């Protein structure tokens, strides 16, 4: 199982990240200051560190310096939104930089992306009889290839990454189409219908009243 260290001086934020990452199938450890973070890294091995910058004890940059020799991927999570802060974080060797406040779906997507870059995730996901090869962007159902358009594939990935989570219409649209959502647009519903049909997920891809859709799997 993939182990993630969460370092943030705010307990509520630690819990928030912990709850969501755990639900997505990661194992999490949360600490609230820089010194504890360094201790945790010394004692355990982690696949990814989510690191706040303003920390008591030792700040995020110091912790980053310490982590570097371990070659553990790091995502900074900070309220510091200025370009120079982001550049500093990335120059220190962080793999990504997420600005507070952030969307849970975005956090999950970035965690996924960084882990994939380090080949730490399965590049093949299996849900029932559907198999997804993320690298090759190929989908098979019961061994038979399923032809998906690029948008359909992105949409499928989003559902799979957020299993059992109700995803909001506007959220889905903005992530996949990277454009502003218009209330009356039927594009998303059309794509979901086609996904259902192609993958035989009439019961798995559930419409959530007034919200959007949810992928329900056991």
């Amino acid at each position, binding site marked *: 199982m993939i182990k993630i260290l969460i370092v943030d001086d705010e307990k509520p*934020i630690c*819990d928030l990240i912990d709850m969501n990452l755990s*639900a997505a199938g990661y194992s999490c450890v949360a600490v*609230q200051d820089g010194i504890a973070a360094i201790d945790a890294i010394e004692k355990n091995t982690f696949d990814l560190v989510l690191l706040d910058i303003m920390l008591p004890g030792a700040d995020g940059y110091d912790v980053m310096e310490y982590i570097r020799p371990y070659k553990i991927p790091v995502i900074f999570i900070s309220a*510091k939104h200025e370009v120079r802060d982001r550049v500093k974080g990335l120059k220190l060797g962080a793999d990504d930089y997420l600005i507070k406040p952030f969307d849970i779906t975005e956090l999950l997507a970035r965690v996924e992306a960084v882990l994939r870059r380090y080949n730490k995730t399965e590049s093949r996901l299996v849900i029932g009889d559907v198999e997804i090869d993320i690298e090759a962007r190929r989908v098979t159902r019961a061994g038979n290839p399923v032809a998906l358009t690029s948008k359909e594939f992105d949409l499928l990935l989003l559902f799979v990454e957020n299993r059992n989570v109700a995803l909001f219409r506007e959220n889905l649209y903005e992530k996949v189409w990277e454009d502003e959502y218009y209330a009356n647009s039927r594009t998303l519903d059309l794509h979901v219908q086609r996904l259902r049909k192609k993958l035989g997920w009439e019961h798995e891809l559930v419409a959530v009243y007034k919200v959007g859709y949810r992928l329900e799997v056991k």
Partner: protein
Amino acid sequence: MKFSLKLLLWTIMVIALTLGLSGFYFVNYVFETALEREIDQALDENSILRFAFETAALNVPVKYDLLSDGSIEQIASNLETGSQSASRLLRLSDEEKTVLYASDGFETDDALLLQTEENQYSYRVIRLGERFYVQTARSVDALGRVLYLETLRDVSQVFEERDMGFRVYRRMTVLMLLLGSVIMYVISSRLAKPIRLLMDATKKMAAGDYSYRAKQVSSDELGQLTQDFNHMAEALENTIDKLEDEIQAREEFVGAFAHELKTPLTSIIGYADMLRSRKLDEEKSFLSANYIYTEGKRLEAMSLRLLDIIVAKKGSADLRKVSAGSLFEYLRSMFGMNENMEFVYSYEPATVLADFGLIQTVLVNLVDNASKASEPGSRIEIQGHRVQDGYRFTVRDFGIGIPEEEVSKITQAFYMVDKSRARSKNGAGLGLALCTEILALHGSKLEIDSTPGEGTLVGFLLREEGKEAGDEEIQS
């Protein structure tokens, strides 16, 4: 044009003009006196010649009553060669102004002769070819005849001397001008040095180097100007430093504010998102809702505090007579229920000038901070004493204290010495910033004296009613 060059050119022009005019006047004066002398001599010579002629005429054997033209020519020719000087130039004419005899080279017109009357003499200066002469004319009485005797005296030398004088003067003028230029160049560049230095300083300052000062090299008006300029630069630098400090403080405030705002927002948005999009069990739902509530409360507390600060910054305190005792009574009732701490009050009765509500806020904040910094059960001393400058309130705790390097920062908005500790007690780091603003309205400020591990003493001074002496500091 450069100032030194201007100065140089003007000086040279003045030198040239004065030298030229005085030279011309002097040479001309010398020339004119010399010429007058020559003219006098020419006239004397003419007189001598007349006498000689008249004497010679008397010795001529007279056949007729009148002197014949031939005799006149004879006498004239004798006179011409008879003198010791090499040759005389003379001319003799008769009553009708017809020339009877003329020496070789006597080639002037008759203008002078024609204007000369009997028993008169006249002269003029004329130029023949390259040479200058004084021509004189005088009537001569000889044996009943009236003749006119004219002479020419060579005065070329006087003219030559004048030309020579001019030449020498010109040469001297050029020389003096060259010398003067060199000297004036040195002087003018020295005079213009303060200006140059000031110019450099202005350029440096315009380019943003406000710490640059012009060197003072003279004690005259320019030196004074340099001094004044440096004073101005000093004032400017101070103002700009102050502005920069203010800008930096504001940037820090905005940065800290954004951070303090985003942290609870992250939780609120995150948990709310979880609640609306996920099926959570009861425990997790409660946890999420509770976080949303507490973080929302935190935001509320922060916004109220900020509002207080903004009001305090903009407003003015309504200073009235307040008895110190009533303030302490208020604190006693406020913290009386708190049995975790041992509060010790001691104060002298006095009447101070204060806005009751605002000073209450300050005292409550200070006592609150003191109890947050202390272990449960420890002592907190709250005192009020009359001092020389007014009335002094102090709050002393025996808690964790503040590290020396943090003391200057703790009155900044959002600054927290121990963040996780402050958070756990629901602090936003705004209390002391608010106190500072309120005390500024009262013309006072916080005085903090702290030793880590031993405790902190925080105090401030208020003006005492009816006591005017020594309150200048407070009134500022």
